[in-house]
């Protein structure tokens, strides 16, 4: 188990070094564009090209929130009584 842990740590370290060296290499970032993206360009892209995925994302977030609320529901007796307007005997 310790050997496996050691191999994992060495693997992570080497992966990190490879990632940093590859991603920070100058040739990767050589041909940069002169025009910087603007916020109005972002809004235009989101509301025109990405309108449908944005709608799907909204539905996904709604479903996630409903699911989270369902998962953390509290079914203790006093809460159910309060919710349905009853009184404890």
């Amino acid at each position, binding site marked *: 188990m310790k050997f496996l842990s050691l191999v994992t740590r060495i693997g992570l370290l080497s992966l990190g070094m490879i*990632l940093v060296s590859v*991603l920070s290499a100058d040739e990767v970032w050589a041909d940069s564009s002169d025009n910087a*993206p603007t916020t109005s360009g972002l809004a235009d892209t*989101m509301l025109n090209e990405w309108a449908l995925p944005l709608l799907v994302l909204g539905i996904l*977030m709604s479903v*996630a929130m409903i*699911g*989270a609320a369902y*998962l953390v529901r509290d079914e203790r007796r006093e809460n159910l009584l309060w919710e349905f307007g009853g009184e404890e005997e």
Partner: protein
Amino acid sequence: MIEPSWVSALSALLFIIGLGGAFTRKNAIIVLMCIELMLNAANMQFAAAAVHHGDATGWVYTIFAIAIAASEVAIGLAIFLAMYGKHESISLDDVDVLKN
């Protein structure tokens, strides 16, 4: 302005820290935080690429990833709450079956 290559290198470091934490930690909340760290590293990479290429599509990806991460955190924390109610622990070692 900070060079995109530096942002990219920082995002790689953050990703590796997140990956290491997700592999080695047993506390569910810390694992969730490490997953968020990896997602944010990817977001930084998208933002750096958007600035480099002068295209707003990278920012769109970033916004989508942030929204999906928010949904994931909401569901994750709800699952951890339910898990704590059942097992009185959020250690990932204590939860080895998906059946409730």
